[in-house]
């Protein structure tokens, strides 16, 4: 009925493909968006060549944040850590295919923030994270 809530988002929110935890994992990170309480955790397993071969997310929050997390974790499987580092916020937004105001943007980008913080460690990319 509405651009923002196009089918893909609602569908992913209701029927996530990647929800779960990986234990053990090679990388994990969790963060939240204190503005709304959205919370995302992402776990990754990486093969010997530094390629992600398994990914999962858990957490709760609005449709946008959860659907974005689901789509993103699906997307990164098969990517190298280097590729994850260079994955941009514009790419994520394009994948979501919806128009977002600044507040909902934070919901959409939370999973990317968590993913990058997990892969880089927090300190390294303070500036990049701050802009997410």
């Amino acid at each position: 009925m509405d651009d923002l809530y196009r089918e893909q988002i609602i569908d992913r929110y209701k029927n996530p493909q990647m929800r779960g935890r990986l234990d053990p994992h090679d990388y994990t990170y969790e963060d939240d968006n204190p503005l709304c309480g959205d919370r995302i955790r992402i776990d990754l397993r990486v093969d010997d060549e530094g390629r992600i071969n398994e990914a999962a997310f858990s957490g709760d929050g609005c449709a946008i944040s959860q659907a974005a997390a689901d789509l993103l974790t699906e997307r990164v499987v098969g990517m190298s850590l280097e590729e994850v580092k260079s994955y941009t916020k514009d790419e994520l937004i394009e994948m979501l295919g919806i128009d977002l105001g600044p507040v909902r943007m934070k919901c959409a980008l939370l999973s990317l923030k968590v993913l990058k913080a997990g892969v880089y460690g927090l300190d390294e990319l303070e500036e990049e994270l701050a802009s997410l």
Partner: protein
Amino acid sequence: MATPQTNNTLDVGAIRKDFPILGREIKEGVPLVYLDSAASSQKPSQVIHAMSRFYETEYANVHRGIHTLAEEATAAFESAREKVARFVGAESPRQLIFTRNATEAINLVAHSWGRANLQDGDRVLLTQMEHHSNIVPWQMLAAELGFTIDYAPMTEDHRIDLERYGQMLEQGPKLVGFTQMSNVLGTINPVARMTEMAHGAGAVVLVDGAQSVPHMAVNVAELDVDFLVFSAHKMCGPTGIGALYGRRELLEEMPPFMGGGEMIKRVQFDSFTVTELPSKFEAGTPPIAQAVGFGAAVDYISNLGMPAIRQHEQEMIERALDQLEEVPGVRIYGPAAEHKGAVAAFTLSDAHPHDIAEILDRRGVAVRAGHHCAMPLHEKLGLPATTRASFYLYNTSDEIDSLIEGLYDVKKVFA
């Protein structure tokens, strides 16, 4: 100037014409339905113009000037103080200190009264329904001074549990701080009663009037409170100004909060002397035009009449709760309508409050979603967030209908 009233009921149609923004469309063909006054109210032309006119005709810095403009500006500023002081029943305008907002007013009390009166081993009693503004300043101070903070619990229907409150008073808190109206639950607390009990236990009482002063008659003398804080922006006034009312003896004894111009009597290289109330707590150039706007806001709502405003809001909240309850999946937080102000916080099945707010916005319906600066309360409710619709003197029952229709949109999306 102001809208005339008949029969002590609001002529909401006429009132709406005073608020330019209420004529606005959110997008083409979608008029604004503003149900977010608990976050901040809209402003009538009378207030907006009072400030513009002030800047255009009599602006100058206040207090220290001899020239005509400075005298006029000072008179306008001080007459605004008198209006606001009178509005809450303060004995003297000297007891009414202008701050940036309610939050700063609480911080002022914490820094000044708190630092001088609280120490390790002492207790401060708050309630579980406080806004962060009445929690964090005390937590910051407690981390420094080592006193303990307790939170009086609520009953099942989200009112203050007076029995437990009474028991907690027996522990002898030095200060008791509570909101007169919860910004989430809408609960109106029995301030006079709670204050009497707290005084009986020897405590100083601070009341957070951010949500009550805009919506009902509040009189510090009748309530007998020691401190009352509130913000202009929630009561038809401008941003950038709030107020602290304080009992004379307490304010007199309290050390200053910030230092600078205006708050001193004399400064030498090695020391300074503090000046009298209220300037003692108003360092630097005050929010002058904002005070003028605050005064105009108080005029505006006084002219409508606080009882009429309260009555209108009670009608609104009763109707809103009735209609909300009929929406399948809606769960409302807070007590029954007769115990609350015009604030309805709710959840709707498993739709996230952010999604609800976003979908409502497509219809022009502006509500808040989140923790509403009351995270501990939400933790207590076991919820990360709620959706909150709040009403003020300009809202209509048609707007409640729009809200309800919007909730059916939400249900469709998440069907």
